[in-house]
């Protein structure tokens, strides 16, 4: 595993150096599902001996049933969210992930981000990974806009002197004026999106992971945002985006992964994979 614990990024200069790369061999991830009942001690004490307490549902093995849901030790439900995926993502790749809800797109992104550790198989990542799953990361309603910029900057791993230029850059772009010193709870949704968007696109990671692409704000801001998003994406060596929108996949991607029940069904050029996806959807509906 080559994932850095913290992201080093700069609001001015892109930090890279190494060749960005993501490579997976037989990557699998089992996801234990805890409902309210199985989370409570009562059930645990009644059904399971203490020895298995923390082992939880790590074994799937033989009990793996048909699709992707299995019952682990002590009755915990385990979902095989990623099933033996192998792929190589090289510099310059713009990967789109498609598949039905629950096909494993978000889980795969989180695994690439290093948040979930694989159950088996190998995942190697080179380069600074920046996941952008939630634009509002670190938002506290009572914090002012300026405080939010600071929080986010520290979250991104910026040094104190970089925080200054980040603040300038963001304040100038989002045009919030004196609202920047008001609590963010007083902001309209559009203002919030502007601020969060400006912040999220102010650094330059090597590998950029999106769960659905960003888009909101008033018309004039949207075109301004598009431009910024474009240059932001172009600065990254690798982009992986999960989306249901064909327009986005067509515009941003040069290669698609089709996922189904945690398996990588197709991997290839956008047009081919979309055709395959349509064929499968039609077959399922028939």
């Amino acid at each position, binding site marked *: 595993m080559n994932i850095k614990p913290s992201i080093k990024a700069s609001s001015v200069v892109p930090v890279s150096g190494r060749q960005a790369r993501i490579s997976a061999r037989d990557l699998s991830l089992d996801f234990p599902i805890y409902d309210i009942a199985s989370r409570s001690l009562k059930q645990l004490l009644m059904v399971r001996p203490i020895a298995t307490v*923390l082992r939880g549902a790590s074994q799937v093995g033989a009990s793996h049933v048909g699709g992707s849901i299995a019952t682990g030790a002590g009755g915990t439900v385990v979902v095989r969210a990623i099933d033996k995926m192998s792929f190589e993502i090289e510099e310059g790749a713009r990967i789109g992930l498609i598949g039905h809800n629950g096909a494993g797109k978000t889980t795969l992104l989180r695994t690439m981000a290093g948040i979930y550790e694989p159950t088996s198989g190998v995942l190697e990542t080179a380069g600074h990974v920046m996941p952008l799953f*939630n634009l509002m*990361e670190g938002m*506290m309603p009572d914090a002012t806009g300026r405080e939010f910029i600071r929080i986010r900057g520290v979250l991104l791993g910026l040094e104190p002197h970089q925080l200054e230029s980040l603040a300038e850059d963001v304040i100038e772009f989002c045009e919030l004026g004196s609202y920047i010193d008001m609590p963010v709870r007083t902001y309209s949704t559009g203002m919030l999106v502007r601020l969060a968007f400006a912040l999220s696109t102010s650094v330059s990671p090597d590998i950029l992971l999106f769960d659905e692409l960003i888009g909101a704000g008033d018309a004039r801001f949207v075109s301004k945002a598009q431009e910024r998003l474009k240059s932001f994406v172009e600065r990254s060596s690798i982009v992986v985006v999960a989306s249901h929108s064909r327009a986005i996949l067509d515009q941003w991607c040069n290669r698609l992964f089709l996922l189904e029940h945690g398996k990588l069904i197709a991997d290839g050029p956008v047009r081919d994979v979309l055709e395959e996806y349509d064929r499968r959807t039609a077959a399922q509906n028939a």
Partner: protein
Amino acid sequence: MDKQMQMAFLGIAESQLEKAIHDIWSSLCAWRLWTLFGYNDVKMRYRRSTLGPFWASLSMAFQVFVTGFVMAYLFHMTLQRYLPYICIGLIIWSFLTTIVSEGANAFISSSELILQVKRPLFVYLLQVVWRNIIVGAHTVVIFFVVALLFGLFPTSAYLLAIPGFVLFLVNCVWAAGAVAILSTRFRDIPLIVTNAFMALFWLTPVVYQLDQLSGPIKTVISYNPLYHAIEVFRAPLLLTEPSATNWLVAIATAAFGWLFLLLLFARTRKRIPFWL
């Protein structure tokens, strides 16, 4: 070979232990993150109040005086001896209990951040610790006022309070860490912890002194490691010296506690995101 056998016995791969230690170490290095977060927590909690964190001081003062007067009356003790004792006792006790019971939510309340970016997990625990150090600094002011009022002027004995505090804090952190991990998996733990502290309050010399007891109950309570962990910090502030037993038990508790936390963390670290 021996070490490997032991680790295998505990069901922990050695690399997991290394990763757990690395997580804790890189969390400590990310001090900018948890100090800012802890500070922001306090700031946001008191944002629109006039007194700000001095509310913590005020409510502590109130609690100390009411409990102090009632207890002094019940125990027939002179206020001059008793009030500083109960004051610092209650301040330390509330620090300990809040750090552990808020620690229970350290990962749960940061689940959004944890599922967003890969970061060392211990950061979120240190955030809770730092937040409570800030609040604690506001409440301990009350003790210094009370101490001066009752003629306990600072002497060089205070110096021992520094290692005493560090040792006390080290004990608080392992307890909070263990509770944080277990609570994420089992959501009953925070409730159990709250109840356990209610009982422990009366089993730990906080509002009474160990010397006031006699017979078997004194023996039982003198085995309570909480008493020793508190005493190494409290005694120097009351210008007395902690006993060798106090130091030994507090150090042993810290050592065993951290060993337990490390093994638990090694075993559960990669599962914590799934539990959220």
